[in-house]
């Protein structure tokens, strides 16, 4: 289980132009890193919430029928937890990652209301590609 800085994770994603919604190209040296970088990109969309101590910790397991479904289910589970419990996460510690399953510790803060404006992460033209450097995917987000 590795912990990387938010800055490093943020540099592994870039926004791609999309007329109505938001789109991001995400990279990672391996699948776990791609999943972690994607989580940072998604939560960064809503800007930085008020500062505070890391007081929330959740452990979740996510499954998917392939790596694209795993990626979308993982990001949508984060959005669900943020909205349903009014929380914000800024650290994601992934373990037991394979193409159909992941386990993750989410660290963050309790807020007085949800701050995410994202409706959902979509499967639009989604493909998790293997590249010489690792993995890459472009995610379209409905906002």
């Amino acid at each position, binding site marked *: 289980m590795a912990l990387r800085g938010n800055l490093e994770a943020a540099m592994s994603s870039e*926004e791609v*132009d*999309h*007329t*109505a*919604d*938001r789109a991001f190209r995400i990279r990672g040296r391996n699948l776990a890193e791609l999943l972690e970088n994607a989580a940072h990109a998604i939560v960064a969309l*809503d800007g930085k919430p008020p500062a505070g101590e890391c007081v929330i910790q959740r452990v979740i397991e996510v499954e*998917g*029928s*392939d790596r*694209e*479904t795993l990626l*979308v*289910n993982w990001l*949508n589970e984060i959005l*669900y937890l943020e*909205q*349903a419990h*009014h929380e914000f996460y800024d650290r994601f510690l992934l373990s037991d990652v394979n193409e159909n399953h992941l386990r993750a510790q989410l660290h963050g803060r309790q807020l007085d*209301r*949800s*701050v*995410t*404006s994202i*409706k*959902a992460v*979509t*499967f*639009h*033209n*989604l493909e998790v590609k293997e590249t010489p450097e690792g993995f890459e995917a472009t995610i*379209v987000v*409905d*906002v």
Partner: protein
Amino acid sequence: MLSPHNFVRVAEFVWEIPATYRDDMRVPARLYADEELLNAALTDDSIVQLVNTATLPGIIQHAIAMPDIHQGYGFPIGGVVATRLPHGVISPGGVGYDINCGVRLLVSQATVEEIHPFLEQIASALYANCPSGVGAKGSLRLTNTELDEVLHEGARWMLGKGYARKEDLDHTEEFGRIPGADAAYVSEHAHERGRGQLGTLGAGNHFIEVDRIAEVYDHAIAARLNIYQDNVAVQIHCGSRGLGHQVCEDYVSRFQKTVHDYGITLPDRELVCVPFDSEEGQEYFRAMACAANFAFANRQLLAHLIRQSFEQVLAGKIRDFNLHQVYDIAHNMAKIEEHQVDGHDLRLCVHRKGATRAFGPGSAVLPDDLRDVGQPVLIPGSMGTASYVLTGTTGAMQQTFGSTCHGAGRVMSRAKAKKVVRGTDLRQQLKSRGIVVRAGSMSGLAEEAPAAYKDVSRVVEVVHKAGIAKKIVRLEPIAVIKG
């Protein structure tokens, strides 16, 4: 790369890509546009997305796009696809995440001149009483049983609670309740996300707007709708909030595997679909109906809160501040409808994603008092510009499965809009034109700047001249409330 040369002009405002354009197309794809809107649609992936929808199993006649088409995910926004039942498919991505996003229009017999001295107070009351913004929580605290009643009953649930009038339900698409809803097919996650959100506006492009009836094109029909020049109107634009988003997520994710079980191959994973009559298709339809009913109930409760706000500010100050409902329409939905195709009466699943039902005069599903007029069609424009009321036409029944456009249509990304427009500047510009703004987020305001959208008047002119809706009145904003 598609260009105008790939289209055949089949009527003055109708452009067709033949089914031979790509091997996987089952039917031709049609776009309603003038030349400028056609060229605008070719600047992003909108038309590729339209062509992709022409590959869906069971699709009949044409894949259709409206003049407000813009790039979405899976379907283009502004798309209409009808599949033949019972075996044609239903696609959750073809409905979208904001299931039954729609528009409600209320009108008053009060004039703008009468309420103008109180406009700032009205805007403040609306902003205070109608929770908006991301994560906004409503004032209703529903038990699990009550939430399921809302999912089954839609806006009708509000009638028993004093939040609706019978005439509101008569003037709501499907009378405020989609039949077939079954909350057993709505996940716990979806229940959780929706529980506190009834009666909330949300963020993004959702809004409440106070308008002036700026121009009447058809006085006879406008009078039948109780709409008169210079009177006050209020529009509500919102949908099924987190509950609808979660229903769509659940089924798009689940169908990633199911679609292979049915041997369906698609050009985009967001288009996943299953036969309507399959067990999985029926489960999605029952869940979608729940989300649609939640959205009808949501707009109904907001209408109640808006009426309360008017009363709070105007009681004792002006004589008549009652708000009468013109209509409530959905523009993200899959509906089971009967249509005549090539002389045969067929039962279809009509997907409208960013498109509005526009049933013409004589339609049996319209309320008695509107049957000879046709269904009111509500087209909100971009913030600070104009909106329109139209009516459905026989032409729409013949050409587009009773469908027309839904708004202006974006041309600029949200990120770019925020780079070129400052929210505070925009608010100042609107103020200088006499438009009062209440917004929770200046960056959210910038994202919805008029420059990010097509000219709604041009879009409406195309559907009017193409005969797929009839222009009745134009509205101009005097106050905008956004999350």
